[in-house]
């Protein structure tokens, strides 16, 4: 947090030297508007995470997304990440909730990677208009196998890094 704060202060000072106070204020108003716009979604994400942590049956999650869930767990994580609505403020609280209720690193990695790479939210809202349809569709097609591979790699590395927490 402190590092970021310093980085932001230095950047703001550089913008001030280059563009004067107008440049600083322009960025501030634009980002304040963005901030106000996402606040409700942040709240929704936190509530979603809290509800999911509360209502998901723990044994069921650890069976279908836990360390022994195999390829199926990775696929469920991928599918879940792809359909999850909202931005980072939704995905990360939900992923964190999944970890708490017994999903393993592999399935949670599959979910987060799937959300970033093939989740429709970012693709529809930003990538399609900026990068164009052709690029976006091919980029998503190329990305399809990656969440499962990342989850499998994560699981593979995890049980070797932390052998004690591996399943018996």
């Amino acid at each position: 947090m402190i590092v970021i704060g310093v980085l932001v202060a230095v950047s703001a000072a550089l913008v001030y030297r280059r563009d004067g106070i107008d440049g600083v204020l322009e960025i501030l108003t634009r980002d304040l508007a963005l901030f106000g716009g996402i606040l409700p979604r942040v709240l929704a994400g936190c509530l979603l995470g809290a509800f999911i942590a509360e209502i998901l049956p723990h044994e069921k999650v650890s069976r279908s997304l836990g360390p022994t869930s195999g390829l199926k767990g990775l696929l469920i994580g991928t599918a879940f990440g792809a359909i999850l609505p909202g931005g980072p403020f939704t995905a990360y609280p939900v992923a964190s909730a999944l970890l708490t209720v017994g999903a393993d690193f592999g399935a949670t990695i599959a979910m987060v990677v799937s959300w970033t790479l093939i989740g429709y939210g970012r693709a529809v809202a930003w990538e399609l208009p900026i990068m164009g349809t052709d690029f976006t569709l091919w980029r998503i097609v190329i990305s399809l196998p990656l969440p499962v591979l990342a989850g499998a790699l994560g699981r593979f590395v995890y049980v070797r890094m932390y052998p004690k927490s591996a399943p018996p």
Partner: protein
Amino acid sequence: MSAAILIDILLWGSVAAVGFIALQRGRAVLTNSLREGTMDFINIVPRIALGVIGSGYIAAVIPAEIITGWLGPDSGWAGVLTAVIAGAATPGGPVVGFSIGAVAMKAGGGAPQVIAYVIAWALFAFQRLLLWEIPFMPARFVWFRAAVSLPFPFLAAAIAMAIGRP
């Protein structure tokens, strides 16, 4: 804009659905989760304020030409490597990476390099890891996930080269 509204409806619809399930488990379950969700929200807001407002300034001082200059179609694997590093260094706002990617494409960047750039940015933009992931998730998980994600922009570039698309 309509896509954003649709996403909001889906999001709050999901909240209402899981909230309803919680209510059926009992009133205490509902109030407990409401309280915990609200506490998370209050804890996270200052960090997000810094992240959102700060990223504008950070993006403003990183010149886009520097990032786009090194990603031409003849740059091969060196270009892919540069793209991955650039993607990690690009601020993690929702627009910045795609905008730079679009500029790179228009300025003659190669498709595999731009793919590697966009995917590296999506997977482990450094600023997003610090500002968005760490506040919400255990730091150990975040670093682990980022490390495990490292090979995948290269793999995506290799697939793009192999199939000759987009």
